[in-house]
């Protein structure tokens, strides 16, 4: 099973598309940055009064933005800020490590902006933060420390500036 550690990431994920059970086997063997203490911030007001932000690691960005770097085997730890009311025709996904054909047709599969807007209109949430943030996920090796020390905290600070009271995160 050491095999998975040596194969390029792209090949492994192509295999997962065809045999999903491989993914959980991979996850059991793969060494992740393991969390010990769990950060915790209590919700300050009910969801119905909270401004909600979305963050995704599914590789979503604007067509006008630089695509995520798919050539680097360690991934691309940077992020893209996207207006939460961006037109869907202006969005795209750069991510070679999962099958995003469903999300290409309906972005809500990975970034539920329309659903969030409906909940805001119904008063189920207090509002929508002005920006959503797109990462690509599958960050490895030397880029992990940049993600942890640099890009993720920067998005956290930006979310505060955006007035987000809570964040929902979606993976690929």
């Amino acid at each position: 099973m050491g095999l998975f550690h040596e194969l390029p990431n792209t090949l492994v994920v192509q295999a997962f598309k065809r045999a999903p059970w491989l993914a959980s086997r991979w996850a059991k063997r793969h060494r992740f940055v393991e969390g010990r203490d769990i950060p915790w911030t209590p919700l300050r007001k009910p969801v119905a009064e909270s401004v909600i932000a979305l963050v995704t690691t599914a590789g979503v960005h604007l067509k006008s933005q630089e695509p995520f770097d798919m050539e680097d085997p360690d991934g691309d730890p940077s992020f893209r800020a996207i207006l939460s009311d961006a037109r869907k025709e202006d969005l795209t996904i750069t991510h070679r490590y999962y099958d995003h054909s469903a999300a290409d047709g309906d972005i809500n599969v990975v970034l539920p902006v329309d659903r969030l807007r409906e909940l805001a209109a119904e008063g189920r949430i207090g509002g929508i933060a002005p920006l959503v943030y797109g990462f690509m996920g599958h960050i490895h090796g030397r880029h992990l420390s940049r993600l942890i020390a640099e890009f993720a905290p920067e998005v956290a600070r930006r979310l505060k500036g955006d007035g987000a009271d809570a964040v929902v995160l979606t993976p690929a």
Partner: protein
Amino acid sequence: MGLVQRAIEAEGIPTAGISILREVTEKVRPPRSVFLRYPFGHPLGEAFNVAQQRTILLDALAALETITEPGTILEPGYVWRRHRFR
């Protein structure tokens, strides 16, 4: 994704994440998670299935209010393409 989630929570904003790989979530330990046994690329379910996407988003939002123990992973148990959402 869990690493980004932890960073946001550490900065002082409560977070809830959708997980489709329970093993990873158990290792990375983000504060609040909703786990779905769904295929990669489908954290909110199927394309154009509004009821499904809405239900899962509401589950994540509810997790913000209901989870009190850091690291909790909720599992609504929807069966991929079988559960009827309304």
